[in-house]
């Protein structure tokens, strides 16, 4: 599904990713861990198509297609979703209006008519329930005045609505208390299927207790330096990142 080869990325002259390789298939959950500044968020932004990053080498293929020259919205239309570490506020735009626009723009890109209001409402209600969200939530301005937990829940709500093929969760656990973490993880698990794939980017192993990865990769200094199973995450939790750094 996703094939990243020798990816090198710079921002303002600083080399962040230095020949990164990653391959994943549908139905898989991959966790990417690593110390601060390793390039985790850069990787997610580059897959989503953020333009401030300069790709100096390598390729990204999604379902066999080279996506390097595609605009962020075109990548979204293919089914790539990024749950933001810091979701942005858009004053005056309700969650409902935002998600409706997002869904219908994606449908337009594939020559589909807008989703009938009735279907949209029903879907919203279902997903709201899944993430144990309050009804009033839908009419609030997106992310404006949301608590940290609400922002993250809103990201996963959007993921549930858009049903992406590839979801990248960038530090979705940060700012969540134990209960919210459980709800969010539960939501993600319900969305997991044999036809989609999930990348979980995190510092800590605690999220991985809830969303169990098939593979764990350690990112350090712009490269994946170690890959393994869930056991690797536990080992990291116990020993910290220093032994990886020394080995690298």
């Amino acid at each position, binding site marked *: 599904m996703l094939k990243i080869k020798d990816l090198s990325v710079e921002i303002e002259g600083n080399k962040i990713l230095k020949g990164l390789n990653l391959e994943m298939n549908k139905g898989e959950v991959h966790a990417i861990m690593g110390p601060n500044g390793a390039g985790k968020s850069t990787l997610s932004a580059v897959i989503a*198509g953020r333009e401030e990053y300069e790709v100096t080498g390598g390729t990204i293929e999604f379902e066999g297609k080279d996506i390097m020259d595609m605009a962020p919205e075109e990548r979204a239309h293919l089914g790539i979703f990024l749950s933001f570490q810091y979701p*942005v506020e858009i004053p005056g735009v309700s969650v409902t209006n935002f998600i409706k626009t997002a869904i219908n723009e994606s449908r337009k890109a594939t020559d589909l008519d807008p989703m009938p209001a009735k279907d949209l409402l029903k879907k919203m209600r279902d997903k709201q329930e899944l993430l144990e969200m309050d009804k009033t939530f839908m009419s609030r301005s997106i992310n404006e005045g949301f608590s940290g937990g609400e922002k993250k829940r809103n990201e996963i709500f959007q993921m549930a609505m858009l049903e992406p093929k590839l979801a990248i969760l960038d530090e979705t656990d940060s700012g969540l208390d134990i209960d919210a973490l459980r709800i969010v993880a539960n939501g993600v698990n319900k969305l997991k299927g044999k036809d989609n794939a999930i990348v979980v980017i995190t510092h800590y192993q605690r999220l991985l207790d809830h969303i169990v990865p098939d593979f764990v990769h350690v990112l350090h200094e712009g490269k994946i330096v170690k890959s393994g199973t869930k056991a690797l995450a536990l080992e990291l939790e116990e020993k910290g990142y220093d032994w990886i750094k020394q080995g690298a």
Partner: protein
Amino acid sequence: MTEEDKILQEVTTTDYKYGFVTDIDSDTIKKGLNEDVIRLISMKKNEPDWLLEWRLDAFRKFQKMTEPEWANVTYDKPDLQSISYYSAPKPKKTLESLDEVDPELLKTFEKLGISLEEQKRLTGVAVDIVVDSVSVATSFKEKLGELGIIFCSISEAIQKHPELVKKYIGSVVPKTDNFYAALNSAVFTDGSFCYIPKGTRCPMELSTYFRINQAGTGQFERTLLIADEGSYVSYLEGCTAPSRDENQLHAAVVELIALDDAEIKYSTVQNWYPGNKEGKGGVFNFVTKRGICHKSAKISWTQVETGSAVTWKYPSCILKGDNSIGEFFSVAVTNNYQQADTGTKMIHVGKNTKSTIISKGISAGKSNGNYRGLVKIMKGAENARNFSQCDSLLMGDQCGSHTFPYIEVKNKSARIEHEATTSKIGEDQLFYCNQRGIGTDEAIGLIVNGYCKDVLNQLPMEFAVEAQKLLSLSLEGSVG
């Protein structure tokens, strides 16, 4: 220029979508401004002597006045002698229904996406169309007539209801109020008139679509709206103009009179030709709009201003009666080389008077947007309250936005609050939308409409949809 700026420039540079000319048979008098022209206008319109005298008096005083220069806009002053002051589509006969309206004209409305038939059928809006100064179609008149509501062109009102016109014209905006109001008083050719009788709630939104059409003709609209005691009316005004190379002057006067316990909601969507991308051409929009509130009356101005090369406009409220309320909700968009100096004046005279001002400015391209507002609390205005909020949104780094709030308080019991913010559409917001599959044009439309929500919410439903479309159109590159 950063990548973001390039994107912004691209999406904020849009050709005017309504730039077309309708070919209608017109009756135009020779260019120039003098007493003979005024006599000719008055004669052509078959006006009573008092009105001619009123016009001539305004003209004589106008000649001693100078064009104001305090607004934060720069433009070449229009040559008032090179304008033809009267242009009317030649009437073939009296029009009873839309079928009799010039098909070319109806086509124009269709191009604007405003099909009259559709409007009438779907929304029950009574529409009085003003094209180049003369009303050519009026509808729903009968239904309104049953309630005693008068809704017609001001020319007709002068003929049929001279006592009302004589009593109220110039009573809120005196004929020598300012340079352009004086000019309007001297040469106005048509406009709308509305009277709502005591205790009557007007059952439909009254709507007028203005459109400047004849090349080189200035348009001098005069609107007079009287809401008698305890009545209610919502009035809509929407405008577009075809593309022209020379500047067109528009100097309208709108007067609202809300008698005791009456309420007037006056909404405007203004989309006149703003000039091309290089700043050539476009309408000069120098408008005087003012309303007076008697005891416990309320006047609400809502405006969405996206057009014109230069705008100079301050819809105001004189809160004369105790417990009266004035409101001003405004969205003003400037793009390319447009300039706008707009805001409001709230003059608190009576006790316990309240005013609210919400102004949202959006500047893009190389444009310049200004908010200028006055809140004045007179000596006798015990317990007056005002709340003002003035927000500016900037797109790109080549536009300007300024806020000039004036506050004059002569009574210690007054409470005045003023809030102001300036923000930019962030790269982060755009990327967030993009990532959810929303392209940059649509994202800007979404963000801008969100930003203006408090004002758009004030518009009647069907008008709000139109206004939203207009906002997106004025700022986007591909939607249409």
